[in-house]
């Protein structure tokens, strides 16, 4: 049964108020086409789960889609803070739920494995523990060692961008996978966007590279440059100038409203036509190609 769907399938598969896990990490491989589609369809009150987020989270807050963010880190890295998220937090409009990075992964792992909570030797000295109802100080039942219990984190939806996928949802990341697989196993519904839909035969030939088997997946959406402006290595590097322009938009800036309105008013195909002319696409590919280990660079 083919799971192929258009990008607009996200309009139905994600509902207002859903807990939505966003794949990718740092400025690498966030599911940006899916993020743009959430903005286009005017989703509200999403509860985001982001392990190491950046422009994905910030843009959704800027687009007014978000009620709370569960995160271990969100920033635009060298470009600066995630200003729209910060403004949302600081005004109280968006709830901030910071959690230690491993605790988030362990909570997702628990959900995927059908375990209501998993305890670990977590950061006992951190102020993040006692203020979080999803974390609890417990003892190991055998050794009496201190542990921190993490409640299972069960997103309603995971949005993950991959390199190749077949129509059954067998998904392959060729580069950065970040928390994608653990999110995919934890979520009730998984939406895969991919650079390229390939045949089952192609996947069978390279089965070791499959990160998430199809039985976790509800929809497969082909979106070339679906991580743009983030990187999707080894296919393309991040579009730093595009991110640069975004990072100049400050909360309250009237240009921000225009920026969001423009995203809302155009399809993903129109988006690509606007921001990815032939030369830019080639440069992004070349920038990834030029990344070399030192032995070769010398």
């Amino acid at each position, binding site marked *: 049964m083919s799971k192929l769907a258009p990008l607009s399938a996200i309009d139905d598969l994600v509902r207002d108020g859903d807990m939505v896990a966003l794949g990718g*990490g740092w400025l690498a491989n966030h599911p940006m086409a899916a993020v743009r589609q959430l903005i286009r369809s005017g989703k509200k009150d999403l509860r985001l789960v982001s*392990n*190491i987020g950046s422009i994905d989270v910030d843009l959704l807050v800027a687009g007014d889609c978000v009620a709370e963010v569960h995160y*271990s*880190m*969100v*920033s635009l890295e*060298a*470009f*600066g*803070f*995630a200003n729209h998220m*910060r403004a949302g*937090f*600081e005004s109280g409009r968006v709830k*901030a739920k*910071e959690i*230690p*990075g*491993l605790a988030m992964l*362990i909570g*997702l*792992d628990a959900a995927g494995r059908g375990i209501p909570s998993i305890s*670990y*030797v*977590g*950061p*006992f*000295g*951190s*102020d*993040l523990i006692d*203020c979080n109802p999803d974390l609890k100080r417990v003892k190991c039942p055998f050794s009496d*060692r201190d542990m921190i219990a993490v409640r299972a984190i069960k997103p309603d939806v995971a949005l993950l961008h991959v390199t190749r996928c077949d129509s059954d949802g067998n998904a392959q*990341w060729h*580069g*950065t*996978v*970040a*928390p994608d697989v*653990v999110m995919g196993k934890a979520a009730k519904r998984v939406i895969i966007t991919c650079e390229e839909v390939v045949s089952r035969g192609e996947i069978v030939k390279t089965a070791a590279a499959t990160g998430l088997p199809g039985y976790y997946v509800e929809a497969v959406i082909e979106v070339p440059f679906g991580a743009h402006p983030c*990187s999707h290595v*080894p296919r393309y*590097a*991040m579009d*730093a*100038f595009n991110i*640069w322009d975004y990072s100049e938009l400050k909360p309250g800036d009237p240009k921000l409203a225009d920026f969001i309105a423009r995203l809302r008013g155009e399809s993903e195909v129109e988006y690509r036509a606007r921001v990815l002319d032939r*030369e830019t696409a080639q*440069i992004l590919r*070349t*920038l*990834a*190609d*030029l*990344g*070399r*280990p*030192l032995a070769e*660079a010398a």
Partner: protein
Amino acid sequence: MKVETHELMVCLIANEVRNHGVVVFGSYTPLAYSSYMLAKLTHAKDVTLIGYNAIDMSAVEMSYFGHEAAAYKCSTARMDALNEVNSIHLSHRGTVECISPAQIDGSGAFNTSIIGDPAQPKVYLPGQAGASDVAQHYERMVFYIGNHSTRTLVPKVDFVSGNRWKISATERRKHGLVPGPYKVVTNMAVMDKDDEDRPFRLVSVHPGLSVEDVVSQTGFELDTTDTIVTPDPDTVHLDLLRTRIDPRGTAKLGILGGQERRDYLRQIIEYEWQRAKDHLKLSAAA
């Protein structure tokens, strides 16, 4: 040959990387990355570097756009973000990590979460990612701070994102943790702490600065008994760093802030973008 501050810091941190175990790259921190590459090329050939999800990568050039792709081209395995991260972070495999917090205090607590009253934060920082877990567990921790001042080295952090739960070797062993140093490397000095109850030692001040310069810019007590001047970096290190590892000086991003950092970043991305354009032209011509 004048040594720039970021170069000195890279070489100091490289010395903290030993020839065993695993080092995982976190967020884009080119100053730390450069240190790891330098160690891998010299005294720590057997350390396992993990960048993004690329396990056991070779050293790569610190190209802003290219280092991520490079990591995958020269690594021997792919890391899943869960079991492998657990295994490295919690099970004595991770050896050293570098973190650049907004605040650190004399107890060793650091803050990358919020500024102000936790009940009503004035500023939300990016968050601690894996730092709270790593600082507790790793053999060696290095905090690097590009703007040494009483605003970064504070009497007491506004919020404890994480700390070195147990610090002394005795306490660490008692709680099943690997002992190892807890250091701070800044643009002015090197400090370390090896006991819960004693202050940070001021190990060395960078050339041209006095102990008093450093003490006056530090918000917590320092033990200055044995303070020396920070020795010059190994010239082999410095040469490798400049000519092969980081020819565009991306490491300097680690000590710049605000608009200065953005301007510097702009130069780097413009240069590399143009290089890609030139490469495309050459390929088309060929």
